[in-house]
């Protein structure tokens, strides 16, 4: 007997939740308990009184499972609203990465040239290394990191995706 895999698609979900102890464990635990995927997850409080947080989750799964994920998130008591940005778009998504690259001579110059093309900023430097700050879509950062790997990538820190619906209406 073999276990079959299903077709899956990427969705960016944006949640507003009560900013309380355990909320992140509640959300992340729901994904593990029900066997859903998390590609990235970000969380920070977003209101002046720190009462509400926004959680952005990038997940993937068959369309039926995505619907189920939204319904399951929506019934958690501290969840105010769940928006499927992918479904309700168009939307803007951004991720920030810090990319440490080491090298000397021509590699150093090439790293700076590529950084310029990707509009990455140098935020730290030594004689033998740079840390670049880059924002963009997940794909853009993947591409940048892929190029830096060929030059002398040391390590990467990424924030995960945040996103908002375009236009004047809230998510």
């Amino acid at each position, binding site marked *: *007997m073999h276990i079959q895999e299903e077709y899956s698609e990427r969705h960016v979900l944006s949640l507003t939740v009560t900013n309380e102890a*355990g909320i992140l464990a509640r959300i992340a635990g729901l994904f593990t308990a029900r066997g859903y995927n998390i590609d990235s997850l970000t969380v920070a409080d977003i209101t002046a009184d720190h009462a509400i947080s926004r959680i952005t989750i990038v997940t993937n799964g068959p369309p039926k499972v995505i619907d189920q994920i939204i319904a399951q998130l929506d*019934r958690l008591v501290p969840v105010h609203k769940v928006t499927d940005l992918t479904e309700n778009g168009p939307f803007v998504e951004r991720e920030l990465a810090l990319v440490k690259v080491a090298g000397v001579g021509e590699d150093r110059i090439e790293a700076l040239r590529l950084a310029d093309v990707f509009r990455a900023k140098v935020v730290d430097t030594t004689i033998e290394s740079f840390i670049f700050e880059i924002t963009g879509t997940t794909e853009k950062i993947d591409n940048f990191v892929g190029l830096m790997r060929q030059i002398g990538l040391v390590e990467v820190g990424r924030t995960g995706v945040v996103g908002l619906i375009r236009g004047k209406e809230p998510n």
Partner: protein
Amino acid sequence: MAEKSGADILVECLIDLGVEVVFGYPGGAVLPIYDALFNHLKIRHVLVRHEQGATHMAEGYARSTGKPGVVLVTSGPGATNAVTGITDALMDSIPMVVITGQVPTQLIGTDAFQEADTVGITRHCTKHNYLVKDPRKLAGVVHEAFHIATTGRPGPVVIDIPKNVQIATAPYARPETFEHASYRPQTKADPVAIAAAVEMLAAAERPIFYTGGGVINSGPEASALLREIAGLTRAPVTSTLMGLGAFPAASPQWLGMLGMHGTYEANWAMNKADLIICVGARFDDRVTGRLDAFAPNAKKIHIDIDRSSINKTVEVDLPIVADVASALTDMIALWKDRGHKAADLSEWWARIDGWRARNSLAYPESCEEIMPQEAIAQLYKASRSAKDVIITTEVGQHQMWAAQHFGFEEPNKWLTSGGLGTMGYGFPAAIGAQLGNPESLVVCVAGDASVQMNIQELGTATQYRLPVKLFILNNEYMGMVRQWQELTYESRYSNSYSDSLPDFVKLGEAYGWTGIRIESPRELEAGIRRMIETPGPVIVDCRVAKLSNCFPMIPSGAAHTDMLLDPSQVEGIMSDEAKALV
């Protein structure tokens, strides 16, 4: 305002919320609460013998009265022992509030004595849970917890209270009605969906109502409305295990339970229907059988208060997110408003009668051995003289036989562990039900194996003088495990024989119960009558045929139309795909 201790605030909240009974077990981290209970005589505390027993008693109390069940246990092992019952309540949507003691806040995270991460452990087996670190927040949390446990899709809520929060003081005033910031269950259906449902129902040629525990949770009004809409449409009605009693078994429109051990007519009607109206049920795998062969020609309407139940396993044509009673009220009003009359369903009923004629619940007769089905049938017959009967069950063959052969006419009279399938549920549930219904005849139908999982509660029934009847169908096996081993593993009975069984009669007597043994079909009727007529708690060791199987049966991974009706159809082996299913 004069300040009160956290423990006193908690107890006053419980009184303000109308709590009459608390099932619990004391321990170090709840001593302040127990001391507060000592002074408040309005709340009856029932001392259990094991915390799991407390949770199932609370479930039995809740399911039979419609009120939330309340549990009070200590930290660490008290809380972890309660986890199975909490999970059971989540799966079967039972309103329950569990108060757990916790080590004082300054010791949390230090592996203190009897410390467990209760909110972490129960996060995914509760509807919601709280750790209260501030006595000023305690009253609000307790009131909110009861609100969440009892509204929307009901479920268990845990409140973890550190010991120093129980002792620290804060002002308490009964909270006014509050609006929750994010929790607002949808109870009223979209009128457009209601209109569409009514038109689909009026146009259907082969409709069937498939009802579940949601009808019972919605309250007695929902059961009355179900009867009304069934009467208006003349459509047949089947139900899940959890929904038994919402529709009267005596009605000619009743097809019996559906699913794995459901009737032939219920499963075939589901398969051939052109419209399924699912009311408060959730297309569980025990009900649907093989998904790609489930009701292939039916349009499906799904009424459920929990949006996540809709399209979870079976895609439906018309979702209605609402409380059952509210949705049925709207549907009935519109049906009458539009002047719909019941369609001519005579052709559909003729087919159903054909399936009924198979008499799928028939079982072989015997004059030597007591057939377990016959024991249930006799129990049903004998208990009809009682004013009010509540049946609880453990989990296994006896549970299915009780569901098949006991007729339920009213909601809240049938208490069983459906979703989680918890052996050890039925006996404590009977104790809880008896506490909530002191005048009723409460019978736990048990198996010899499952009854041992919470048998320590014999002492609880004795202590509170509860006249529960424990009717054990003793076949010396974990019967359902043995049956699956016979069907799937060529009768290799690996560890399913109940060796070293106690003498149940003597065991009962040791606790001050009356013990009765029934060993032959000749003694069955009189033995059951004696059980019912004997005052006080009675344990019955009913020795039944050892190798009986529960039929009809849809083997796992099979379609509704592939039902096995009797042992001659059993091959004793199964494909790996079928074996891999639960």
